[in-house]
């Protein structure tokens, strides 16, 4: 989970690392955009070999929820 958060945070440029917690609602982050979503999906495929769909991403709100989707696939 810790590593997943780090990889997730790497897709951002300006947001402080401390702002990324399991319960963080990532869409509320100032820097979040649909483009960040694409980068996150790409990271998940490259690092975890899991192909997320846009619907997968849309179905979750927090980083932990996303992590659970990734590990369940």
């Amino acid at each position, binding site marked *: 989970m810790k590593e997943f958060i780090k990889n997730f945070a790497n897709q951002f440029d300006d947001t402080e690392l401390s702002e990324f917690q399991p319960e963080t609602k990532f869409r509320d982050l100032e820097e979040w*955009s*649909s*483009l960040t979503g*694409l*980068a996150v999906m790409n990271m998940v495929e*490259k690092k975890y070999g899991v192909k997320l769909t846009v619907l997968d991403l849309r179905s979750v709100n927090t980083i932990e929820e996303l992590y659970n989707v990734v590990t369940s696939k």
Partner: protein
Amino acid sequence: MKAYINAISYYLPEKVLTNEELVSEFPEWSVEKVANKVGVVQRHISAKDETAGDMAVKAAEKLFEEYGIDKKIIDFVVLCTQSPDYFLPSTACVIQSRLGLSTSCGAFDINLGCSGYEYGLAVAKGFLVSGIAKNVLLLTAETYTKYIHPKDKGNRTIFGDGAAATLVSMEGFAEIGEFSLGTNGQGAESLIVKAGASRCFEKLNDLAFDENHTPHSSDHLFMDGKAIFDFTSDAVPIMVEDTLAKNLLSLDNVDLVVFHQANKYMINYLRKLLDIDKERFYIFLENVGNTVSSTIPIALYEAVKEDRLHGNVLIAGFGVGFSWGATILKCK
């Protein structure tokens, strides 16, 4: 025999669409966020009766005037566009006449988008090296905004219209190196205007909106952002590596990288993937947006003006097709 970029000029249509205007149409959009993420503050929009051919002519006239080029020397004109003036003839043939170029001048269109500038340079270099032509006028011009549905805020934010003119000669400021080119037609439907040409001549009038209120219509430009993102993050690093190998260079020997200016987020993502520092990465998007095949010549023109185009410059285009291409420019 070597081939060089001798001169570059560009033309942008008069009408400007600002982020403020876009946000007034799409209140859920934020002016700052668009500027920060996509990196575009304004884009130029072709007039209703202004075509890619019209803009290419203007860019060429500007080139001739700016550098005092005698148009009699042009013995080939290539226009790269996906918004030609007609189905037939080639817009390049019409341009030969409009520019008053010699009738012994060859002319044709190349139908490519974001990778078009590299393919145009490859063709021009091929003509020079093989002795087919001595001075190739390479034009890139696009009016994608005419293909975009008015409610398609994403694409209206990214794309702008424009044209560029490049003279490729046996002398110049940037020697054109070896190329890495590639294609994967499986991505054809990821960025497409489906209706209007031969496969589907009649308009389909099948407009529908998805859950994000994004319009989907066969009669308009469709872009699958995720597919494009995945394709570029896979293809571009491989292409960069191949280009460096073919030019016997390593990334450390590259002085400036100029990618197709797709949008700021995307190209910065690629920059980080490739571990290229910001100082060697050129971005010119703010006032023009993504002008498709003209983003690289426009960026090169501005980089020359800023005195940043020296040494080995890596240029790379990628997108619609899927199609990609890159080369090294050895600059003085």
